[in-house]
């Protein structure tokens, strides 16, 4: 395996979304890299098993942290495609065994996408008292030609913590449809954060995050932040159901909209199936604060630069 198996464009987009590329490509950094549908970089460390198989249109992969192992350095995943057209289907399975801990930084980059489809169908299983922190940052280029469908099914064991942070705030979106379902068992803790910015009429964002608090004392937070400008279309649905005693959850949706033809919808859905459980929600959708715009424009920013700065701050 070469030291730097990824194309220049993928590395640059990783840098653009804020990843430390030098660390990411270091030989000793635990990693699993794809270039289109080829596995081009794998580095395991003690307690971390990474195994993949190439398929015609994608890759199947197992990502396992063995019982009690705490992976000290972040594990980098990279799913990149520099082709303009095609299909990439990823079917990963993450198993974080009892007492294990890991932080995963995932980078999905499609910098030249014109008619490119990316599907991910992930299964995530946390054992007991495990910690899985997962951060995924996307870059879909500037042409609005990506169609991206990440789907996650997550089972969080007793006393475990699962955190997922997704962001797509640079460049165009194209079509993004995220579907996450998390099942939380006794005394587990869930935190889902999604951030997206649709900034043209080609950009459509659809997000459905659902957390089912099935165990006693389980806790969940769904936090959605989005913006739509210049005809962008964003719909975010945050769902939390609490079906066990003393389970508590909160759904927090905030979206801002700017420009003719832009639409933003926030739909919090809360359901309680136990008299001792509690779920709260808040949602706001509104235009960009005029005084914020005026303030930044009085510093010399154009209106669009000011909108971008306000949105990036919120996201």
């Amino acid at each position, binding site marked *: 395996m070469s030291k730097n198996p990824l194309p220049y464009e993928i590395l640059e987009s990783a840098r653009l979304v804020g990843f430390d590329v030098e660390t990411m490509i270091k030989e000793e950094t635990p990693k699993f890299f794809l270039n289109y549908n080829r596995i081009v970089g794998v580095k395991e460390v003690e307690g971390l098993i990474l195994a993949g198989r190439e398929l015609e249109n994608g890759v199947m992969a197992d990502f396992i942290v063995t019982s009690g192992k705490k992976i000290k350095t972040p594990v980098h995943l990279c799913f990149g495609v520099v082709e303009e057209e095609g299909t990439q289907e990823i079917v990963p399975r993450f198993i974080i065994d009892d007492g294990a801990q890991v932080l995963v930084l995932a980078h999905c980059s499609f910098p030249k996408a014109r008619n490119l489809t990316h599907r991910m169908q992930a299964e995530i299983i946390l054992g007991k008292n495990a910690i899985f922190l997962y951060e995924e940052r996307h870059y879909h280029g500037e042409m609005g030609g990506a169609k991206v469908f990440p789907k996650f099914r997550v089972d969080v064991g007793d006393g475990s913590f699962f955190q997922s942070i997704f962001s797509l705030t640079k460049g165009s979106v194209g079509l993004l449809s995220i579907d996450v379902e998390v099942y939380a068992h006794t005394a587990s803790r869930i935190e889902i954060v999604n951030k997206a910015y649709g900034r043209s009429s080609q950009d459509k964002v659809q997000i459905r995050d659902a957390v089912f608090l099935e165990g006693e004392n389980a806790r969940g937070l769904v936090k959605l932040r989005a913006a739509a400008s210049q005809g962008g279309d964003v719909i975010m649905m945050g769902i939390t159901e609490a079906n066990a005693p003393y389970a508590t959850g909160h759904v927090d949706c905030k979206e801002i909209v700017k420009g003719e033809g832009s639409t933003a919808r926030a739909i919090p859905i809360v359901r309680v199936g136990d008299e001792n459980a509690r779920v709260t929600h808040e949602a706001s959708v509104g235009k960009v*604060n005029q005084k914020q715009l005026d303030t930044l*424009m009085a510093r*010399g*920013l154009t*209106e669009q630069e000011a909108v971008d700065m*306000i949105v990036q*701050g919120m996201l």
Partner: protein
Amino acid sequence: MKPLLEIVDLTIVPPGNSQPIVKSVSFQLQPRKIHALMGPNGSGKSSIAYSIMGLSQYRPKRGRIIFQQEDITHLTITERAKKGITLAWQEPVRFEGIPVKDYIKAGLKMKNEEDIKKALQLVGLAPEEYLERKVDNSLSGGERKRIELAAVVAMRPKLLILDEPDSGLDIVVYNELYELLDAIRNETHSSILLITHREEAGEVADEGTLLWEGKVKAKGTFKEIMKKYCELAGRKIKCQRIPCPTKY
């Protein structure tokens, strides 16, 4: 010397008003001077400030704004800012998630971190403590006002409009603020249009204009203005709430 800014026959009907709040106002601001625009609350001072800055809701119904001999009445906020005009708000807005350094940097042509640090130091804030903090509700009102001042000072504008820079500040920091205005002028060589209803603030001004019910009632030195101010305030019972500087 040619004036930096000329306000000619300005009439403004702000949003939510059917009648003008500013009525045929004219005055001039000379280069590198602090000009106090004084008057009680509601006299139209802030409306003039917003109109000079180019806020769309404060576009003049009549009159002209001349900056460096160029009519800028129809320019946008951004265009005016690029010409060297900026405004520090009476109540600066807060921004979720934007660090102080990025907020200040936004207005700088050369994105030099040393300039940002220097501006923070000038307004009495330690850069190492504030650069990474967010311009949000975690800042006190006084801190937010100082950061607003730092942001406009760092731009080194030709014309700096300060809208009630002392409002919301503790009385003990007033003197510090007035010293700061002098320091800003000396540091940036900017002209300052100081919007205020406090006569103490006006004391730092070289010259001024007194507004009363939307009209110019006096122009000249600070003392000349204050004489007229007291005369007018004395006639109006409601204005007895304004501390009248009897020494004038």
